[in-house]
């Protein structure tokens, strides 16, 4: 009997991480694409950093940043009554870190392709920036952003390095699919490893297909 908990946990972690990527990531991408401010390049570099650093380094930073003795970690413990590290919530943070940089970088590009004139037109009609963002910019960028969101979900499913550093490998608690595969190979359970590999590959393929489907240009409508 196969234990499906890792799959269920991975889906839950990826869904939550994607939710945070969509909200916070879209906000940051909007700032980067529409605002000029001091230190913009630095922010951009910081966002790219997780893409190039080894997962162990990122995991180490996270442990220092949100560990039980850090201010952030204590704040979290005070708010939720339990430490963050070595819980499945830490796996969400790890997955977020794994998928947010790509979402933000590509999301910025998507938001930049929205023709400024639509936003200007909205402003000249009296619409606030907030209203313009919700009613004009976001709907026009939605196709691209939702495709990126499914890509983020697929990427969140696949994090291994950071997850094992900050969430550990506790079966039934923090063991996500990718960690479970590592565990199965280590303990010589070839059959389990094979099945999990096929499951995660199929899920990733389906999500990539969905991303491609969403990012297709809208069918051209004929002019009347």
């Amino acid at each position, binding site marked *: 009997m196969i234990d499906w908990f890792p799959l269920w946990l991975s889906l839950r972690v990826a869904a939550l991480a994607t939710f945070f990527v969509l909200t916070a990531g879209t906000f940051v991408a909007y700032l980067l694409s529409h605002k000029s401010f001091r230190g913009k390049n630095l922010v951009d570099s910081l966002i790219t950093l997780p893409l190039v650093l080894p997962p162990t380094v990122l995991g180490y930073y996270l442990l220092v940043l949100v560990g039980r003795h850090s201010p952030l970690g204590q704040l979290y413990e005070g708010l939720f009554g339990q430490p963050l590290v070595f819980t499945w919530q830490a796996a969400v943070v790890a997955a977020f870190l794994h998928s947010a940089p790509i979402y933000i970088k590509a999301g910025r590009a998507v938001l930049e392709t929205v*023709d400024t*004139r*639509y936003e*200007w*037109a*909205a*402003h*000249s*009609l*009296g*619409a*606030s920036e907030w*209203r313009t963002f919700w*009613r*004009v910019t976001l*709907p*026009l960028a939605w196709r691209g952003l939702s495709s990126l969101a499914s890509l983020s979900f697929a990427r969140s499913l696949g994090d291994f390095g950071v997850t094992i550093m900050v969430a550990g490998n506790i079966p039934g608690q923090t063991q996500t699919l990718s960690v479970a595969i590592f565990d199965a190979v280590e303990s010589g359970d070839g059959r389990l490893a094979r099945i999990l590999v096929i499951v995660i590959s199929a899920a990733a393929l389906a999500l990539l297909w969905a991303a491609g489907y969403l990012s297709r240009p809208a069918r*051209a*409508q*004929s*002019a*009347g």
Partner: protein
Amino acid sequence: MRIDARLIKRLPPTGGSEAFELNVHLKSDADITVLLGPSGAGKTLTLNCLGGFATPDEGRILVNDELYFDAPTKLRLPPQQRRCGYIFQDHALFPHMTVRENLRFAANAGRGNSGLNRHRRIAELLETFELADLAGRKPAQLSGGQKQRAALARMLVNEPKLLLLDEPTRGLDGRLKQAFYELLGKLRERSAAPMVLVTHDLEECMELAGHVCLMEAGRFTQCGPRERVFARPATVEVARSLSIYNILPASVEALDPGRDCSRLSVLGQLWEVPYLPGRLIGDQGYVCVRQSETKVVVASGSPAAANQLLLKIESASPSLRGVRIQLEHAVIAEISEAEYALCRGSERLTVEVPSAAVYFVGK
């Protein structure tokens, strides 16, 4: 003054283009002010400064006695508070909304209207601009002319105080252009706000402008009421840019205020024109005669008569009014097919200008 805008904006050189400086003073009391100039002259940048989408480095903008921008006091009203109706090139109708939703977006964005008022205003505007049947369509399902009407209707929803139109007839054929000018008449019934319209189309300028600002390389070369600018270009460069004039070098030979008469030497011929106040004998300059007033004398002899020139024909091409003949010294005249048949084969042609049509501009 309904519009009084002093604008200086410097754009640093970028990859493809050189540094650019906009330095203009737009003052107008007219209903429609037209900025006329070639592309790259800074017309759209001027509109963007008025609308709040570009911030001048120096200057101030005063519209209907309301201060939009003042560089010394760092006052800059955001576009939302300027209440400018802006027609962008290609209209910028929101592609994901229907025509009615586009108007409703504008109504909801504006302040102070009650729900019922908004509803009524949208219905009225859809009716006025013949959009009632198209209200449920998305912009992609509209023709060029329909998009134009929708953009105008959307602009008027919030009763703007200044109307900015950026090449509104670009890409429309002659018939649709005419329809658009009629629409502007309709628009006038609903909004008395001053309008600034950008174009590089001379005929459009003729058709619409009350006040004209000719623009070149970030500057106004001449501003004023339309008739004045077109009849009295300030410099020979302005006259050339209008491309409605035949321009020939000339010098003042005699001045007789008593008989209200002056004599000019044009290519060695003496022309008699009305008295030129403020000129001196020997002044060098140019005579400008509208191409439409340059007559061709078909039964040509020697150019003995006054105000005539014998010029070599360089080429002839069919035109709307008959045949357009290009003569030496870049003189252009238009004659009918029948007249052209009479002078076909001759190498030279005599042109005559009525003395009242001659305008002398100094060097």
